[in-house]
């Protein structure tokens, strides 16, 4: 929801980033305010996924220039865990499987680490067990999930639910969800979307990075941005998504080329 005079959560200007000497982001600009939902769309290889990783602080990317600020604070020199403690959450397209680490123990460790950094209260295993029940319910997850190894052998849908479960306990100011809809059947998509809608409020922001319009039927964005060549080439409201659905990306790319030349 667009709120007048809302706090700026994320401010990105003229951001350049490269990996192994290949430049991926090329003058990326975006401003995200509290209460808003943004969708970043674009063809494969456009740089939308890179954008999400750069904001979260992936070490493989080198930022070459521009500004990257979170609630007015420069993120450039911060480690991924410091960004997480500030309130940045990245929902992974391919959540990593970590055999040997139980999901429940990991979630509590993450929760307590972030709580401690924010001056909140840490929970012992029993208290955490109580705390997480409502979050599990929100995502229609069985408590048995907590006993399994982190993401190991999870189906695509289970992995994505587990990502939103992590979002639920980490209570981010900014949640960037990278291709959260990929690999989901329609029921799982509903559950995940419902989770995001429930968790989102007036004081935080959500950025959906997605290739398809499908997710946007369930999570309604305030802004839609189309990315190509490592920057945003068009911004519109929800209706832009429908246009993309029926016409594809080509016309925008063409439009952009002609306006540049």
């Amino acid at each position, binding site marked *: 929801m667009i709120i007048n005079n809302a706090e700026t959560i994320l401010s990105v200007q003229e951001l350049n980033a490269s990996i192994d000497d290949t430049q991926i982001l090329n003058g990326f600009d975006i401003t995200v305010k509290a209460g808003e939902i943004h969708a970043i769309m674009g063809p494969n290889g456009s740089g939308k996924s890179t954008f999400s990783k750069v904001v979260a602080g992936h070490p493989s990317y080198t930022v070459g220039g521009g500004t990257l600020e979170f609630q007015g604070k420069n993120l450039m020199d911060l480690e991924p865990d410091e960004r997480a403690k500030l309130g*940045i959450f990245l929902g992974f397209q391919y959540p990593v499987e970590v055999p040997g680490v139980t999901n429940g123990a990991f979630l509590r460790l993450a929760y307590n*680490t972030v709580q401690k950094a924010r001056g909140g209260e840490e929970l012992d295993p029993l208290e955490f067990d109580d705390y997480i029940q409502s979050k599990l319910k929100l995502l229609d997850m069985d408590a048995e999930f907590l006993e399994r190894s982190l993401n190991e052998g999870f189906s695509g849908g289970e992995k994505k639910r587990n990502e939103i479960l992590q979002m639920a306990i980490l209570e981010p100011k900014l949640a960037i969800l990278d291709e959260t809809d990929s690999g989901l059947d329609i029921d799982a998509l509903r559950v995940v979307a419902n989770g995001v809608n429930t968790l989102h409020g007036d004081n935080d922001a959500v950025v959906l990075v997605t290739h398809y319009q499908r997710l946007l039927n369930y999570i309604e964005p305030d802004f839609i941005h189309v990315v190509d060549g490592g920057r945003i080439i068009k911004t519109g409201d929800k209706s832009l998504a429908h246009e993309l659905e029926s016409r594809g990306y080509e016309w925008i790319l063409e439009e952009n080329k002609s306006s540049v030349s």
Partner: protein
Amino acid sequence: MSDRAVEFTASLLEGEGVTLDSPKGKWLRQRQLEARVALKEQALPTSEEEEWRFTDLTSLYKNTLSSPDDRAAVDASVVKTFLIPEASSAIVLVDGVYSAELSRTNAVKTKIRVTDLKSALGDERLRERLERQLNNVGGDGVSAFCEMNTALFKDIVVVHADNRGVDMETIHILNISTGKHTFNHPRLMLLAEKQARICILEDYLGLGGFGYMTNAVSELSISAGAEVIHVKLQRDDDSAFHIAHTHVGVDNGAVYRNWSVSVGGAVSRHNLVTRQREEGGYIEIKGLALGHDKRIVDTHSCIEHTKPHGQSNQVHKTIAGGRSKIVFNGKVKVHQDAQQTNSSQQNRNLLLSARASVDAKPELEIFADDVKCAHGATVGQVNDDELFYLKTRGLDDGVARNLLNYAFAKEVIDDLPIKSLAGVIESYIKQQTRV
């Protein structure tokens, strides 16, 4: 042959073996004598020998070790903290000698007998089995250390399982070292009769001991249809030398499952030789070796398939931190007769420090043409994607790395049948994989 190794060998041979004065033990004294003679021909190995190329024993040979004659008193309440609730019997050896006082056996209600050498010799059937199997369970991998054990063991822990049709029982054999610069040569013989089911924990630790050498030999003879679970936990003092030979013979359709965990010692070497002696059978070996500080951990395993339709599955994981040195030599030998063998071996090594090293060598010798043998060995560092994932959840670099190291190691013991031990091993992993 280095002078140092020869001198060290000779100094150990000043010790005595079995002192039992019974006519039934005559054959045994003869064997000990033969081993002694053999050691005069061939001293303990040096790194000039191929089998010991990566493990330098100079730090052992420059010691003067003595027989642990003055045994320090061991506090029973301390021993108790190491015992596992799953075990029906706990056999405690102090510096290689059986302690009736510290042990507890519960043999009345079961068909598993745990005895010392003296009682075993008194039972004609057992004596005959012992004489036939001693040093004859089968397989390659007998080194001069094994010979040294044969020359010098003072007792044998004999476990005889004849419990077909009843539940699996767990026996804990706890080897405690209290000596300072002493040696001991513990010997174990497990005889599993047809369809017997037994789980043994072979456990080594130091209580006040320092710079001691444990030179253990364990032989397990597994008859047709039997199932043996064998957990070897080497948690000796950080100053100790631990040399161990495990020889296993697996008969028709029998199952042998081994977990070998090395989390102690300054220098350790485990020769684990399993031999499928008859058709069928299943051998599973899971190994975990943790190297930290300047520790050397060497595992030489050999799985030998001699007859058709055998299956084996081996997973060996190691973590090398600090300036440690990890050695793994994993041989799988499939004889010409062993058609339709199905064998897999996986060796994964995690290198935590630039000053640590890993020498990994899978060795396949296959003489049969209709077999499936998969193997793979990797040496790697912590995965960057996994690390990034954990860090985006707020975990700082050190915590995230610890968690991943821990998870890597823990996978080996996830299905350990002795549940209480999993927690014990986990705490060693946590301590020793800290970044």
